[in-house]
């Protein structure tokens, strides 16, 4: 049997995960705006309505709080809904259902019912969509006990993490990146699940640890490439899930390199980078040779103008500068 692996896009990888899990388990159904006949705003659900029918691929009215809550209820009854919120920006409308219901129902009722649901949504900036359509709200979801939060950076992870999420008995938030849907790479087969809470080293190095997820992994890798040209070997680590978090792998790396930079597309205040830096300070204080660097989006609503937007989101040069700062070195001009 051929074991040749064909590269697919991040978008196709998600589609494969949905399709395989729907074939595997009758209780899995999809719900969201324009996911059926329109095949998704980003065409992630292409072909699924034709294959599975309207019972399992459900176009909804524009009513995020309502259908997200509906899926919480359906999950309480034992179904496995996979909600697509068109973009993370619209999840704010559904936040009460996610935070007050989905994340708490197992706990506050003493474990009487599970909420086995997935909420997928893409986010991130970079397409000049301005202030209301460019959010990276990872920190808001990762803040909430009871949720699990995945942030896939590759097609393989997008597929493997989503399959794990669908089979998981807790509510799982899957934060996809609008900027990665066209990214190609190999993917695993039907049985390839990626466990939650397992970070992966994307590039080994000895001089400084760069922690990044989702699209920021690629920004970090580009930075690492530039650093290598200057004789600095950065290690890039992708936690892949914020909740649960594989702090062991991160800390092991930082203890080895004695330096760390955290890259996060969200805002700096009370954000993911701040939180990961705090964990690393707590676990690696005695090993650190420099303050931990943070690279975030600027502390502003996302502007429209292309030059402003690019200035607001993390670029490889920002990461290079942050790593050099941990080495007390200037970036050569």
């Amino acid at each position, binding site marked *: 049997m051929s074991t040749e692996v064909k590269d697919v896009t991040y978008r196709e990888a998600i589609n494969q995960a949905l399709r395989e899990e729907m074939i595997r388990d009758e209780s899995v159904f999809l719900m969201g705006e324009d996911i059926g006949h329109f095949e998704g705003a980003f065409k992630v659900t292409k072909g699924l309505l034709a294959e599975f029918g309207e019972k399992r691929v459900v176009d909804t*009215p524009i009513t995020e*709080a*309502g259908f997200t809550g*509906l899926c919480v209820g359906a999950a309480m009854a034992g179904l496995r*809904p996979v909600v697509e919120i068109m973009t993370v920006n619209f999840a704010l409308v559904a936040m009460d259902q996610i935070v*007050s219901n989905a994340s708490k129902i197992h706990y506050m009722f*003493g474990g009487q019912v599970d909420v086995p649901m997935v909420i997928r949504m893409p986010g991130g900036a970079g397409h000049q969509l301005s202030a209301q359509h460019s959010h990276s709200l990872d920190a808001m979801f990762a803040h909430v006990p*009871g949720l699990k939060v995945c942030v896939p950076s590759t097609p393989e992870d997008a597929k493997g993490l989503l399959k794990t999420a669908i089979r998981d008995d807790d509510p799982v938030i899957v934060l996809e990146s609008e900027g990665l849907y066209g990214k190609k790479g190999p993917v695993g087969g039907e049985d390839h699940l990626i466990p939650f809470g397992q970070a992966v080293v994307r590039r080994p190095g000895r001089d400084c640890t760069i922690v990044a997820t989702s699209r920021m992994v690629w920004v970090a890798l580009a930075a690492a490439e530039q650093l290598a040209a200057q004789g600095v070997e950065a290690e890039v680590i992708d936690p892949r899930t914020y909740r649960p978090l594989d702090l062991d792998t991160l800390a092991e790396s930082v203890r080895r390199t004695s330096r760390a930079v955290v890259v996060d597309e969200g805002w700096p205040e009370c954000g993911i980078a701040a939180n990961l830096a705090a964990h690393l300070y707590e676990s690696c204080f005695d090993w650190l040779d420099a303050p931990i660097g943070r690279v975030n989006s600027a502390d502003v609503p996302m502007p429209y103008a292309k030059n402003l937007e690019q200035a607001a989101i993390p670029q490889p040069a920002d990461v290079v500068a942050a790593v050099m700062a941990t080495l007390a070195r200037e970036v050569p001009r």
Partner: protein
Amino acid sequence: MSTSPPPIPPPEEMREIFRTMTLIRRFEERAAEEYMAGRIGGFLHLAIGEEAAIVGTVSALRPDDPLTSTYREHGQALARGTDPRAIMAELLGRETGICRGRGGSMHLMDVQRAFYGGYGIVGGAVPLALGLAWAARYRETEQVSVTMFGEGAANQGVVSECFNMAGLWDLPIVFLILNNQYGMGTPVERAAAVDDFFPRAAAYDIESWKVDGMDVLAVRAALSEAARLAREERRPACVELLAYRYRGHSMSDPDTVRAAEEKERWKARDPLITFERVLLGEGIIDAEGVAAMQAEVDTVVDDATAFAQGSPEVPVADLADYVYAEPWNDAANGSALVRP
């Protein structure tokens, strides 16, 4: 309001309805005492005065019809048959509580009896009920999802979203708007553009009507018809019950806003007293029978209270139990976030 005379249930069932209403009344009066004694913390929302709405509804349903409610839900659990001991223990925050002390008064659930819980965000549980209806249709069961919420919740946007989806998809759900005329201290006329709430559901092609929520048989008849529509014709329905709660919004509300005269007027139509009159008039129970039943209910409430008071506290070591379906790192006082 519906004008057709409600059908009379068999005598045994009439007595059972009366007993359950009495149990809810006595249980909640005792809960108020426990609260005043400092043994119940947080919020305690009493449904005293609303017993007909609760028991009339539950008695019209099948035991496996999923029921959801607001934070004013002790009565729903009792009517569904949850052990009063487990409810009182939950109110006292004990290990033996129905939710092991994690929920308290506002978050009772008894999934074994298809009571899917009390929720604290006004209007927030209505989508869950829609999801339970969705699951019933997905699995092709005969279940009807019934959700009780107040007229205050009807002003929340998500409730209109649910009316729309229920009407659009013909889901087997009954929306029950318990109009007790006040959202906390704000009367309907200061909160709603139109006094009646059932026409809002009608606007989404949902069969809707209003009945007297102080008359248990009228409520029961309305819910029977609503559940029939949902079960047999696979159409959603909405029933508005006009009722009144005798106490303030919660035990921490001194209830100074509502006029004493108004309260007396509603208490004159007390659902327990009026239903007792019906039972006596029909010869279904006699005065001795009423006294015996009340004594029996008091014994049950005494026993539940003693049980709760004597129950162990929840071990602090178990603080982080139930955050996730499978424990990840549920260390006491620890974060469930970080891999051990």
